[in-house]
């Protein structure tokens, strides 16, 4: 099969790159090995940990992926990203000029750029409501009620707590390992369950300004929160949970659908295992674990960091297993014994030139690019820029390919 561009990876960066290419008329294919790290994400995306992220990005050293893109381009591409989310039907709030804050699963408030609409968020540590009623499915332990209520209280919001149950959840609860965010979300896909919840809310919420629920509002359906708002005539907001992240999974699915709708192809369950080159060392094709060979003009490596298996570490060091790309940042040791200190391995990644061409033995390969968390030279956790780098570098690579 022949494409303009084959993207190896199936997460946020691969999807963003694929969509940008597809909507500009390029034939693109994704090789998506399995679940992506969007399953672990919260319901928000960080650009950079600073009240005004673009100002901070302008100061970054040349080795940082954002510096290769350039701050003006980062700003422009941040706008493109918002547009793509919109096209995919994911409504977001937030701007790249000024971060807002979003509540974390343990009730901290952290800086972020875009949040999926409906997550509890604040501007300048101030929420726009004064009272709330928190509804928690009985036996569901992935929302930490005391952390959340105390965080809200610190921001001046009085919160009442109500545990609820629904006939379907009672049955599910007989197997406690089933009381997960995805199971609850699936139950709330069903009209009768949602109506039952709505009537509990109407009965129990008192005069609370907003209704809070763990981010488990519908799995297959995208409008559950809005429907619940209409049924209860209240504002309904979500508290993010630890994995699996229902909102992360839904966002991934929406992006995949948008990509396919634009004519993109997804080889799901395929892992790229080998590649072929021409006499100039340019990539001609990649072959997958299911023995499918995909030919293209351009190849983008967006397989992620260690979690996504884009990078692999053994006792000897770090490598990029598919192309054997040059690696930067593979310090020894790779870790710091304090988990809350910057972890050296976070800075590991494939070496790229200014246009994100991958370097092999010091020489860039003209039609091979890398984007997303497989890049090195930055710390996604400490800089709060994991999602931002995934998105911005993906769009930057897509535009380089489009302009080629």
């Amino acid at each position, binding site marked *: 099969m022949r494409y303009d561009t084959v993207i190896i990876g199936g997460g946020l960066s691969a999807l963003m790159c694929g969509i940008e290419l597809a909507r500009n008329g390029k034939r693109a294919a994704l090789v998506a090995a399995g679940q992506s*790290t969007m399953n*672990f*994400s*919260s319901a928000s995306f960080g650009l950079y940990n600073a009240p005004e992220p673009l100002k901070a990005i302008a100061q970054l050293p040349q080795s940082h992926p954002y510096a290769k893109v350039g701050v003006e381009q980062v700003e422009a591409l941040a706008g493109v990203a918002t547009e793509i989310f919109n096209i995919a039907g994911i409504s977001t709030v937030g701007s790249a000029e000024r971060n807002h804050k979003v509540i*974390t*699963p*343990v*009730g*901290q*408030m*952290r800086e972020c750029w875009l949040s999926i609409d409906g997550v509890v968020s604040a501007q300048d540590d101030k929420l726009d409501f004064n009272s709330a009623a928190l509804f928690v499915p*009985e*036996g*569901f*332990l*992935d929302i*930490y*009620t*005391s*952390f959340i*209520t*105390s*965080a809200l209280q610190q921001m001046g919001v009085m919160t009442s707590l109500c*545990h609820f149950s629904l006939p379907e959840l*009672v049955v599910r*609860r*007989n*197997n*406690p*390992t089933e*009381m997960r965010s995805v199971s609850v979300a699936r139950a709330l896909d069903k009209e009768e369950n949602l109506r039952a919840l709505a009537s509990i809310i109407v009965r129990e919420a008192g005069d609370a300004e907003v209704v809070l629920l763990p981010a488990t509002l519908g799995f297959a359906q995208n409008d559950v929160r809005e429907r619940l708002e209409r049924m209860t005539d209240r504002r309904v907001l979500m508290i*993010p949970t*630890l*994995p699996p992240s229902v909102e992360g999974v839904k966002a991934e699915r929406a992006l995949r659908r948008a990509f396919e709708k634009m004519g993109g192809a997804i080889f799901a369950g395929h892992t790229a295992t080998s590649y072929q080159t021409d006499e100039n060392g340019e990539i001609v094709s990649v072959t997958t674990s299911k023995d499918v060979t995909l030919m293209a003009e351009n190849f983008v490596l967006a397989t992620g*960091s*260690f*979690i996504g*298996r884009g990078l*692999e*570490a*053994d*006792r000897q060091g770090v490598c990029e297993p598919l192309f054997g790309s040059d690696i930067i940042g593979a310090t020894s*040791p*790779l*870790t*710091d*014994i*304090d*988990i*809350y200190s910057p*972890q050296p*391995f*976070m800075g590991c990644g494939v070496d790229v030139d200014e246009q994100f061409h991958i370097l092999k033995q010091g020489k860039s390969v003209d039609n091979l690019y890398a984007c997303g968390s497989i890049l090195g030279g930055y710390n*996604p*956790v*400490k800089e*709060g820029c*994991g999602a931002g780098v995934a998105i911005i570098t993906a769009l930057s690579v897509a535009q380089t390919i489009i302009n080629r």
Partner: protein
Amino acid sequence: MNNQYDVIIVGGGATGAGVARDCALRGIRALLIERADIATGATGRNHGLLHSGARYAVNDRESAEECIKENMILRRIASHCVEDTGGLFITLPEDSLEFQAKFIDACRAAGIGAEAIDPKQALALEPSVNPTLIGAVKVPDGSIDPFRLTAANVLDAQLHGAKVLTYTLVEQLIIESGKVVGVKTLNTLTGERGEYRAQITVNACGIWGRDLAAKAGVTINMLPAKGALLVFGHRVNNVVINRCRKPADADILVPGDSITVIGTTSSKVPFDQCDNMVVTADEVDLLLREGCMLAPALEHTRILRAYAGVRPLVASDDDPSGRSVSRGIVVLDHATRDGVDGFITITGGKLMTYRLMAEWTVDLICKKLGVAVGCTTAVAPLPGSAEAEKVSKSCKCSVHCVSAKASVENRHGERAKDIDNSTAAKRALVCECEQVSVGEVEYAVNCLGVKNLIDLRRRTRVGMGTCQGELCAARAASVMSEVAGKSAAEAKADLKSFIGERWKGMSAVAWGDTLREGELLSWLYDGVCDLSNLKEQK
């Protein structure tokens, strides 16, 4: 408040807990003081091997005999802490079969059942064993959960009237006319200071006993010997595998619950490192290299974490050079040794002989106090092992499924019936790897003295499984805050330190899947949850 006791025991490892229990069973009023949680020192940092004694048979007959006797006793009194895995001593081509012959003779002389079996039989018994073996001997090794064992001793001591203070530091010994008459303490959680008095104070502090003795002006020449171990991500072997040669580094592979442990190394460390053991890359190399000789599958098995403990070795009193080390049990009566009355040190020995160490100590205490009650700890079962065989039928704990029921009974024996799993809310699982319910967390907080998440891990195995707490720690923190009445800020600080602690053991072996887990851990707790920016607690 009555702060007068017959005996104060300092140190909440297996030995201290054993002394407290033995005292309580003999009607002696005992107070056990531990600076952190129970089983935090060497007790919780070893293989968890129920030695048959075979390892010592050739070189140290006395230790071997003690081990096999205690082995048989623990199988009876602590059945819920013991798993009868059996053990193999294997001879590899580079080892000598002559040693095997000598080994079997020595085992038999020490009363240890040792049976040579054909290498093929050994492979059938334990398919993970190195297939190049040329000889194998079956011995009655097993595995033992040191946390459970210590908790059961503490619980029984309390049931018989002993008082237990954890997170309490002994700042000073109270000495009046050359006699130790009590201790001054600091509660490290509340900052509260206390004073307790007793006729006798027992130093059961392991390697830290040197410092306590110094407070009485007594010198004990101790040699901290570090032992590093690795935990593998699943149960590679079902039978304990030892190397049949002179005891050396990393030659014991022990299965325990859902994991397997290889150890140990042995190296001298300075005293100032005893509180902060870090496993080095060289130690990891050695453990892996030798471990693969026992079970080649280890080469491709995920390593969950590395940890190390410190053996409290004591230099013999009659050797001024300090080179001659006693590996046996050391009871020091400081009245006769140093002219300091009311002060006894119990040290040396090993986890296997904790009960015997306690018996000797309490025999000495009885002599001093004029108490004429004999020791019953060799026959009286620990709580949890009282009616072990009847548990499964009689236990009314309505856990949702067979695996959860088995897990909870395995951990608490017949005490599982005290765990409230009567409602769906109580049955909700906090830790899915190890099947720990909300009810079990409540029981651990209310009945087993759990103060924080790390304590909870020692009592229930929360976070000890494959995910190392990645997905259950926050749940557990939230449940703990409700059950133990902690503020959200305290509970979050507890969560932060629990995750930090888990990572310490992972970072030494952070490559392959363990690095992946580490990246996720950092993402989730430093990134998604933003725990780094937790405001510091007072």
